[in-house]
């Protein structure tokens, strides 16, 4: 409750400050709001509270996922402020919308009622529709926004339809009552219920950018401003997967055989389509977009083998992916500002110009490809472990095949950085440099000591 209040107040205050032409105060207010939210969030640890008459339940799951989300959002706000604010006329609105999106995310991590799921999805998505289109002079940005909005609205319709079906069968929107109904039924439910589950599933798969609902992803990720893409691909995925895990572990576990085969195939499709298409890309931004589809596939693997490890393996994976993804998109932004393109060739000779940035980017790529001593490796290990534990040997073998396709394209910009001659000097602004180093240090720290996260959750 306090988290939501802190976020809403700071975002609304930022909007008013924008009206009053107090732009200098906007970022501090937003940062303070996020810090307050992080504090309130931490205070909820082991202190389960039900809010809005059981519409939401703030528990440890919310604290951990929400903590990661708030932390990454905070970093993105700081990045945005340093890297992009000077070109921005609408800074207050943009930061405020980021925060409103976060509110949607928090709702998605704590809902106990189908309506709140719908609300959360809508709040989050609407913010991202707007954020994707904030470069209103840029054709690609407009296209991204429009495409995302049209397809997103359609998928939200599916979500609502699914909720309606489930309501029709169970006469309840409350997650606990639905779970009770499923338990009572002993796994035999009316076909409408299954239709409802599948509709919700498809809508959530759309939000997580998993195949075959992934078609919007490359264009939207490419067209949206890079820093917004970083936000969407990191926390956006985290919130969507959080809501996914929450819904399926609370309600639909007894019906596992109804949806696991579908999820199995979609996990495999996401991995393969993402990876194989990424191989062909010349633009690094588009390549990262496709790679994000494949990472959605890996995370789906954890959901296929639903069990005690699901939540923590999804969390670990989402955390490690977010760290690496934010790092790589921000690096890409810094490079693009100087060299004016997203092509792999812009990475040429970066190692000679700015060795720190080159090392940071290399470690992010190693983490994304899942090389040991980075967070990404343990994330993959955790997922493979939980999938094998549930007996999905072939899926794991296919995931293994996919992860070395990934290595090939992740290493291409790395090699370009070190191998070729440089053209234009690149400097990292001081705060961003520190933050990027922090992200890299975290990637290595939880890569070497994953116990810090795993043992405590």
């Amino acid at each position, binding site marked *: 409750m306090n988290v939501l209040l802190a976020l809403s107040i700071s975002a609304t205050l930022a909007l008013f400050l924008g009206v009053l032409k107090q732009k200098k105060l906007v970022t501090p207010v937003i940062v303070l709001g996020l810090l307050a939210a992080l504090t309130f969030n931490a205070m909820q640890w082991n202190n389960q509270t039900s809010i809005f008459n059981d519409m939401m339940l703030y528990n440890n799951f919310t604290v951990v996922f929400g903590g990661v989300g708030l932390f990454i959002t905070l970093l993105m706000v700081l990045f945005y402020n340093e890297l992009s604010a000077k070109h921005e006329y609408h800074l207050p609105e943009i930061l405020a919308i980021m925060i409103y999106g976060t509110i949607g995310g928090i709702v998605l991590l704590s809902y106990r009622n189908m309506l709140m799921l719908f609300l959360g999805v809508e709040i989050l998505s609407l913010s991202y529709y707007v954020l994707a289109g904030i470069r209103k002079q840029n054709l690609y940005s407009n296209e991204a926004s429009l495409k995302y909005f049209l397809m997103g609205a359609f998928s939200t319709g599916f979500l609502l339809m699914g909720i309606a079906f489930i309501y029709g069968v169970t006469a309840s929107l409350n997650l606990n009552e639905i779970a009770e109904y499923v338990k009572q039924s002993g796994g035999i439910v009316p076909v409408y219920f299954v239709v409802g589950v599948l509709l919700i599933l498809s809508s959530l798969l759309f939000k997580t950018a998993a195949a075959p609902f992934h078609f919007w992803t490359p264009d939207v990720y490419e067209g949206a401003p890079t820093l917004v893409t970083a936000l969407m691909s990191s926390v956006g995925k985290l919130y969507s997967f959080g809501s996914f895990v929450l819904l399926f572990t609370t309600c639909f576990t007894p019906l596992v055989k109804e949806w696991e085969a579908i999820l199995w195939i979609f996990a495999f499709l996401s991995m393969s389509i993402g990876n194989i298409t990424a191989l062909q890309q010349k633009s690094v931004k588009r390549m990262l977009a496709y790679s994000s589809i494949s990472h959605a596939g890996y995370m789906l693997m954890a959901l296929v083998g639903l069990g005690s490890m699901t939540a923590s393996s999804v969390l670990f994976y989402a955390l490690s992916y977010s760290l690496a993804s934010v790092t790589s998109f921000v690096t890409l932004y810094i490079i693009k500002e100087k060299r004016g393109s997203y092509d792999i060739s812009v990475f040429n000779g970066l190692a000679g110009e700015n060795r720190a940035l080159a090392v940071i980017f290399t470690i992010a790529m*190693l983490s994304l490809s899942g*090389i*040991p*001593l980075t967070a990404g*490796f343990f994330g993959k*290990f955790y997922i*493979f*472990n939980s999938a*094998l*534990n549930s007996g999905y*040997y072939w899926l*794991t*073998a296919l995931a*293994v*095949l996919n*992860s*070395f396709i990934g*290595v*090939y394209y992740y*290493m291409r910009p790395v*090699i370009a950085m*070190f*191998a070729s001659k440089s053209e234009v000097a690149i400097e990292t602004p001081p705060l961003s440099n520190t933050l990027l180093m922090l992200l890299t240090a975290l990637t290595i720290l939880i890569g070497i*000591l*994953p*116990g810090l996260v*795993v*043992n405590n959750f």
Partner: protein
Amino acid sequence: MLLILLIFIPLLTALLAVFTKSGARQIIQVASFVNLALTIVLYTSSAKLGDNLTMVNIPWIQSFGINFHLQADGISLVLLLLTNLLMPFIMWSAASHNYKNENIFYALIAFMQSGLVGVFAAKDAFLFYVFYEVALIPIFFICAFWGGKDRIRITMKFFIYTLAGSLFMLMAIIYLYLQTPGTHSFDMAAFYGLSLSSTEQTFIFWAFFIAFAVKIPIVPFHTWQAETYAVAPAAGTMLLSGIMLKMGLYGIIRFIIPVVPEALNYWQTWVLTLTVSGVVYGAIIAIRQDDIKALFAYSSLSHVGLIASGLFSANAQGFQGAVLQMFNHGISVTAFFWMADIIEQRTGTRMISELSGIATRSRQLAIVFMIMMLGAIGIPLTNGFVGEFLLLFSVFKVSIIAGAIAATTIILGATYMLRMYRNIFYGTADTTHPFSTFNKREAISMYVMAALVLILGIYPSLITSVSSDAASGLLQLFNPAYSVR
């Protein structure tokens, strides 16, 4: 404690070297000698030292039963000695090259050293896997940035090839972990105690086999090898061939033989066919090579094929011979690639057809090369003889036909080696370029390696007495009916 030092001394000096402008090479070089001294202490007196010096076992990731467990038995000790003995030489060999970004280059070598030590000392399968992969990263960068023509494509191929193999190993390791009783454990000893059905054994066998076969390499997984050896900088080639491929052989010792003995028994004919055909294939291709480095690459393929055959024969001679021959091969292949580098640096070419008469220009080189060559061919009183004899003996025990085919390596080896020697060292010398003789670093290392060839040829117990207990223990895991003497 000593093992932790062996891992962390190179690691810390590598980090230090990254941030130093000058003197990085010297720091790392000194650290490598410290490591060598520690290893010799460990090697000569590991039985006398207390457990707290020779063993480490601290929890790493508790919720998964992963421990930082290091311990060196006889086989590990031999390979640790090999690693830490060759490292100072390999660094010295690079000293004459004046690479760009020298500090990074040496830092990567040192980083690799700690990875390799970790592989050979790990007793926890997860830890083994992590080190196995970590050792790959530095060599990737070494080849990709300091390599020769077309390095990017070739290095990528090598990297993806080996990574692909090891990911299957990861799957197998996780599967085994999930089979361990109770709250699961990654301890290798726990894996040895599992009873697996024959289907399970087969899958795990092939998963491990692919991982190690790519690294060793065993035909038909060898296609990355010759190109990578040729394109890598000299030090990189030495690292790859001298030490890194031993990781694969060591993996067979630690995983395939003790964990899935039944599957090995069942598939023995198949894998022996592959390894023995590799022995012949490598040797025949080597005869046709003009590039010295490529010739050594294929000869190495042939030699490691024989080592792998000995291991897959799974008898006492095979294990002992394999451990001894791993050490021998490491020494000789490092010396060979170094000498190839010396020849290339001084004459500007490493094509056999363009070289002649070097014996009259540098007698030292000719003599050391001759000793190394005799060792590689397996002439009595050289180390190669003892090793190859044991290995061939072990293959004969399994199958006379396989043994007979594998034994052709001696003839074929002599063919390509002597042909090369004749063309490079005899004939009229081209005196247009100066050909300086060994400098101090080269002289010391070459003489030490040549001396080792002779010493181990006369007195192989220096190695075999250390490894014998571990080899018998391995045999007992493979075949519980076998009793030690």
